[in-house]
């Protein structure tokens, strides 16, 4: 059943208009951020706004090309494209050009190209293709292995390129999995691990251990609905703790408190296992596994933090968690970024009148920190408009995704939403000091060809799929 449909009358024009608005706003603010009196012509191609102009025009051409390609192309070539990009990622990792410490760029003459930006698209495509196939169940380990292969492989390669920001974006695909039926328990477990990691950084280890023990007891109660189990377990733990403490005092042992508590915990756990076996208390083993896993994680956090993260990443995290304060060092960017945005007040300083961004107090003011220019020159009103545009776009895409008959199209739509939302949340969040500084661009707004093209391609593939939503049932 094939009908010829007119792509241009069926494309979702609301999304296209929102897209054009954002791209235009981006260009205006890039112009303002790098504006100087010697280069006022908007066609000055030695300046960033001149170059961005070229990329915008090219992006429009790409958008048109994407739209006239047959919609079946994308699902059909999803895996193939993903492999091509993975190959490019490997090539870049080995032979790429290093900029700002990341080996993430392919250079052709004076044009630079960042495959990682495009990896998001193909990952979304591959994910959609895999999840839309018939025999996929979110309750099987095999499914997770495949999903892991699709998402984690590009992520790992990008991490090897020393581009942690771009790698983190792939975390966003969890949202797609969630929509597709990722069990809540898995999700909660993930959240639990992250929260534990952060808490272990901020709080005394001792508190974290007591906290996890308390949590284990609560979970025990929730699972079994028998308060007696909890009561008995608590008494056993307190008793063995007292026993260990008494022994330490009596024999005047010089044991660190950590080991003592751990010892008491192990002792009481063994005792409790025997007891629960005797009385047939269910789910004790799993819970204890979880408890010791948590404690193990708590103790390994420092090791992971100190050995697997770069110094600047550690500093940014410490800064955000308030463990370190260095407004002229690691905190400089965020501090200056907040000053720029905050000094915009309600209505801003006016177009081209921003001083903080123009005089380089804010670093990367046309790329990652472009939002500062908006906040400074257009004030809260400008921030409100920009955030509203993004929210409208995201909600519109959500609506479009949900009206797809094709599962492939819907899942791809969610992939797009996830990536956009992640970029939006992290980018603006970092400029106002809510998340650590992670160098990823603001979609459609930030200066840079690769990023603009990648988001344009990603968006228009979806719009193309949407045009054909009535055509096929996949």
């Amino acid at each position, binding site marked *: 059943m094939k009908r010829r449909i007119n792509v241009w009358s069926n494309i979702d024009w609301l999304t296209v208009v929102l897209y054009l608005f954002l791209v235009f706003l981006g260009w205006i603010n890039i112009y303002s951020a790098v504006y100087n009196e010697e280069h006022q012509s908007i066609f000055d191609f030695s300046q960033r706004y001149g170059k961005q102009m070229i990329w915008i025009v090219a992006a429009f051409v790409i958008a048109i090309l994407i739209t006239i390609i047959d919609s079946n192309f994308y699902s059909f070539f999803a895996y193939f494209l993903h492999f091509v990009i993975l190959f490019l990622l490997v090539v870049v990792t080995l032979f790429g050009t290093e900029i700002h410490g990341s080996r993430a760029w392919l250079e052709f003459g004076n044009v630079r190209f960042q495959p990682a930006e495009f990896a998001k698209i193909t990952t979304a495509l591959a994910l959609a293709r895999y999840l839309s196939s018939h025999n996929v169940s979110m309750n099987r380990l095999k499914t997770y292995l495949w999903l892991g292969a699709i998402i984690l492989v590009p992520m790992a390669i990008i991490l090897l390129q020393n581009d942690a920001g771009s790698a983190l974006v792939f975390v966003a695909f969890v*949202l797609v999995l*969630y*929509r*597709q*039926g990722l069990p809540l328990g898995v999700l909660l477990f993930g959240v639990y691990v992250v929260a534990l990691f952060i808490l272990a950084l901020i709080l005394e280890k001792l508190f974290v251990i007591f906290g996890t023990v308390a949590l284990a007891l609560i979970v025990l109660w929730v699972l079994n609905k028998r308060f007696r189990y909890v009561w008995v377990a608590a008494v056993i733990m307190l008793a063995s703790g007292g026993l260990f403490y008494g022994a330490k005092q009596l024999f005047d042992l010089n044991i660190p408190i950590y080991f003592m508590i751990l010892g008491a915990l192990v002792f009481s756990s063994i005792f409790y296992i025997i007891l629960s076996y005797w009385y047939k208390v269910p789910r004790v083993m799993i819970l204890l596994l979880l408890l010791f896993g948590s404690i193990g994680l708590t103790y390994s956090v420092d090791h992971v933090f100190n050995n697997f993260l770069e110094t600047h990443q550690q500093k940014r995290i410490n800064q955000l968690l308030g463990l370190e304060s260095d407004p*002229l060092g690691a905190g400089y960017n965020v501090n*200056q970024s*907040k*000053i*720029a*945005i*905050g*000094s*915009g*007040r*309600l209505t801003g300083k006016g177009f081209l009148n921003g*001083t*903080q961004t123009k*005089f*380089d*107090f804010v670093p990367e003011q046309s790329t990652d920190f472009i939002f500062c220019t908006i*906040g*400074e020159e257009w*004030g*809260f009103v400008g*921030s*409100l408009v920009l*955030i*509203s545009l*993004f*929210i409208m776009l*995201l*909600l519109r895409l*959500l609506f479009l*995704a*949900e009206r797809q*008959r094709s*599962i492939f199209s819907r899942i791809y739509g*969610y992939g797009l*939403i996830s990536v956009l*939302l992640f970029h*939006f*949340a992290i980018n*603006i*969040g970092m400029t*106002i000091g*809510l998340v650590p500084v992670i160098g990823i661009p603001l979609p459609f707004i930030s200066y840079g060809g690769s990023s603009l093209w990648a988001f344009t391609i990603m968006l228009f593939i979806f719009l193309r799929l949407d045009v054909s939503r009535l055509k096929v*049932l996949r």
Partner: protein
Amino acid sequence: MALDTYAVRRNIIAFIILLIAVIFLVKLFMIQVVSSDYTPKATSNVIRRITQYPARGLIYDRDGELLVYNQAAYDIMVNPQHLEAFDTTEFCRILNIERSYLNKKLKEAKAYSRYKPSIFLKLVSSETYARLQEKMYKFPGFFVQPRTVRKYQYADAAHVLGYVGEVSDKLVDTTSYYKSGDYVGISGMEKSYESVLRGKKGVKVYLVDVHNRIKGSYSNGRYDKKAEVGTNLISSLDMDLQRYGEKLMKNKIGSIVAIEPSSGEILSLVSSPGYDPGLLVGRQRTKNYRKLQKDTLEPLFNRGLMARYPPGSTFKVMNALIGRQEGVLYPGTTYECHGGFYAGNFHMGCHNHPSPVDMIESIQVSCNNYYAHVFKRIMQDSDYESISKAFTNWKDHLQNFGLGDKLNIDLPSEVGGFLPSVDYYNRYYGENRWRYLNVVSLAIGQGELGITPVQMANLTSAIANRGHYYTPHIVKRIEGEKQIDERFRTPHHTGVDSAYFEEVIEGMDLAVNGQAGSGSTARTARVDSITVCGKTGTAENPHGKDHSIFIAFAPKDDPQIALAVYIENGGYGATWAAPTAKLMIEKYLKGSIDVQWWEDYVTGANLIKQKEEDEEED
């Protein structure tokens, strides 16, 4: 459509999207609308106020000759945050500094602030600056701030002109105008006319970028304030005369103060030994200042305004005037003198001169005996019920001539001098336990009298004016102002009738121009074709040989110049002070010296060396 059991999760995703938006908007509302902390931070980020230092006012002498002007100098500044590795050897060579100085200063600058500039090297000359400027690109982090330093046309008149130096911390704390590192007048005219000379600092408000580079003027210069150039001063000093005076006083300790009687303008104010004002400028200032401070001859001490000497016999003219005014002395009053004044066991010596003498002759020959009698009459005047009253009245007369208290001239560090009071003697001898004989040495200007050279010159000026004086002052005119301060334009009357002055002046005329063999004491001050009136003084003092003193004015009938000359340990007034005064008068009135011998005589004398030799003999 496939069965979709998780469709409800789209609502949760929509909720997450909206939640993020709300969190962002709340946070943005807090920092952009609620908090007002960020705007001032942004302002301090980009705004730099750069002080504009105005050029200091120039100083001219009374004939319009430029005496003090400004010269460009450069402070080398350093901003540690922009420092990069550089060729320290070359840098030190260009600036002519030690490597240890470089290291020390860089450490200090970093300790002060990593992000704010501080002074690395002060007041570098234009030549050094030119050499550095060519290579400046090699030394990032360093920059140059232009300043001005004072430049003196001559190596003279340091005490009058004064010097400029960095403002003290105290002044920075107590005034709002000065900031640390500013320059301020510290002595002389530079100090007393500081507020006129300094002009007004301006400020330029610039926008700077993160590297502290100036990106343009803030608000098109709306908040800029132009620096106002300091006002020029026309000094009353006659620089030719001043320099001549300093030349005459070379190798002597003492002072010359010359005043124009008709106006009170100070024509010259010599304090010897002096120093070159150019020494107290720029980078060498502190070093040179310490050196001058250590000098045992005290070149920094302004003897003209600060040294208190007994007036010696010059004081006889005062007692003559007071005696006449009080009606205890007449021109015809004569006393015989046989080698001095005798009263019981008391004897005050006198030198050999014709006897008896009347009042005019007593001044001509400087008779001690005569003035002991005059002083006795003043103290025992029946108009006054006690010696206390008589003495107080006598002292009032002296104060009317500007003695005892500060004259309030327009130069800093003037002292008041010392006149003894009734209380002083009451304390010394006991109340009513003293009589004229106890204090008779005051008759001839000895005893408890401390008078500064400028007070002596002013007294002479009052005599030349036949009864009044104007407060001496060093500024003739302030450019742009019609008149100088009123206190310099108001005559002070001495309270002595002008007729009595004519008699005393007659005696001063004869002291200089009397016939050879007539006993005239000041014939060494004679000038052909100019009637000089003068009086010698020879002050005993505890510091060795007598001080040689001379007061004089000329011409007699139309006084143009009145002066006092003090030469410490110079012996008789006629020996050094009188010829020095005569040369000064001749120089001022005629412009040249008739008899070169006198000049050679005075300039050839090295009294400092002689004093040292005398002391060694003792």
